[in-house]
């Protein structure tokens, strides 16, 4: 079995994002970037499946500018076998991303495609489902547990009401929740080895996919700020404030 894992380079989850003064976006210069957190879970799960002997090859793919490669190198350092970097020089919407991934799936013919359920930059939560639709494959979204069977996957999904289990036939798309596993850290020797693993570069324009934006970003602004509150001295003052000042209890 072959698993394709898609990873995205985003502003690190610990960074307090700042909006640009001209309203065109958020500040990315000199800001720490890393792999989208649930994409790390996707890589980890693929590696675990390979370690269990149920997969032969893991291919990590990213789509983005030159530096997006770092995310693939990180995936290679924790166990992916080779990488693909599809180069684009501007932000691409999930629809275009899924069309690019579809082209790669046509070429690579993986049995499974894993990715995070949502990227923490645009918070869209679309790409996996879109790719599944374009390929006509089943989708197991928000996965917190995956059981690989002979020709199917049993996947536990995190839904609003609790947990749901579905069975999807392979080939399938899985989008991963943060609770799926605990991503490992790359060891220094493995980081060195990863530098020698093959990483293919493809220009998005060569794939014949239209990556033009369909959604116009008119402006990006700071959300309304909450006005600073007060500290109360003790519980009894807190309850009095809630009762008589805020009138919420």
């Amino acid at each position, binding site marked *: 079995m072959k698993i394709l894992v898609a990873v995205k380079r985003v502003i690190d989850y610990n960074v307090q994002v700042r909006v640009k003064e001209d309203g065109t976006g958020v500040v990315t210069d000199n800001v720490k970037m890393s792999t989208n957190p649930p994409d790390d879970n996707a890589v980890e799960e693929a590696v675990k499946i390979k370690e269990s002997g149920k997969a032969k090859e893991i291919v990590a793919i990213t789509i983005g500018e030159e530096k997006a490669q770092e995310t693939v190198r990180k995936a290679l350092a924790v166990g992916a076998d080779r990488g693909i970097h599809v180069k684009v020089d501007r932000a691409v919407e999930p629809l275009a991303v899924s069309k690019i991934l579809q082209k790669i799936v046509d070429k690579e013919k993986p049995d499974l495609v894993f990715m995070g359920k949502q990227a923490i930059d645009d918070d869209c939560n679309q790409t996996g489902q879109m790719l599944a639709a374009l390929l006509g494959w089943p989708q197991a*979204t928000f996965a917190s547990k995956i059981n690989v069977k002979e020709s199917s996957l049993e996947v536990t999904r995190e839904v609003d*009401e609790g947990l749901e289990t579905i069975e999807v036939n392979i080939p399938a798309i899985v989008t991963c929740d943060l609770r799926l596993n605990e991503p490992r850290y790359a060891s220094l020797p493995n980081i060195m080895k990863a530098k020698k693993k093959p990483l293919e570069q493809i220009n998005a324009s060569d794939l014949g996919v239209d990556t033009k934006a369909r959604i116009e970003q008119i402006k990006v602004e700071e*959300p309304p700020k909450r006005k600073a509150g007060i500290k109360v001295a003790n519980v009894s003052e807190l309850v009095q404030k809630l009762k008589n000042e805020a009138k919420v209890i």
Partner: protein
Amino acid sequence: MSVLLIAEHNNKELRPFTYNAVSAACKIDEDLHILVLGNKSEGVAKSASEIPNVKKVIHVDNEIYENFIAENYTAAIMKHADTYSHLVCSANTFGKNLMPRIAALLDTSQVSDVIKVISADTFLRPIYAGNAFATVKSNDKKKCVTIRPTSFEPAPATGGSAEIVKSEPGEAFKNSKFVKREEIKSDRPELGTARIVISGGRGMQNSDNFKLISAIADKLNAAIGASRAAVDAGYITNDHQVGQTGKVVVPDLYIAVGISGAIQHLAGMKESKIIVAINKDGEAPIFSIADYGLEADLFEALPQFLEELNKLNTIQK
């Protein structure tokens, strides 16, 4: 222009967020139709027809819709999509799972998690865990939109009498199968719609200590929430998680206990009307957004809090 709203339900009744989605959909266009896909779901179609402002209900009843499998839903929705300018549903796990599958087949770039309808093609949506708001304009002919339910008031449930039109099911998808659902039953209000939410974080230390939270929740008729740290640590089940990748809540009162206030958690609760933070670390970021902060050991503060509540003559329910 006309809008097709995909109803979320449990085959017996509409799920509450469908009413919020109706309010948002009405702001896009007044010609609003609701599509109910379910199994033995006549009651749902009837409830949908009673929502004022709904012009028509399309009801497709078949066993393949029993468990709301997105692949089956999509085939049915595609049969009707041609007639509409907008397809809308809630941005909860139901809509997040479903809508992109439809959007891709319609070759339209979806607008996710809308918090304000500015016009029929322009929307406001949070990005970066709500640390920025983006105004976006969709240039696609057909628009697929998911709306953040807590940003819109629920539409009234009765007063309307739309016609219900029966329609044929779409093709069944063979490669996905529902196995089981583990719903956590609770007598408490639903987290997404509760007037008061009390949440615990890593500071709770173990699942047993959540009893301190539930005692207060009982007293206030509140829903119980949790930070991702508390869920990851196994103190409480995932359906309680509030945050960027969990639920977004906008209660009148949000009480954060033993929660430091990571960006990811704030994304799910910072629009709450009144925020209370109880934390022994006076520097915790949660205090910067709290209306009332109490720097205290939660194991002392929570029993005192319950005691003080017990002293009150009346408590709003």
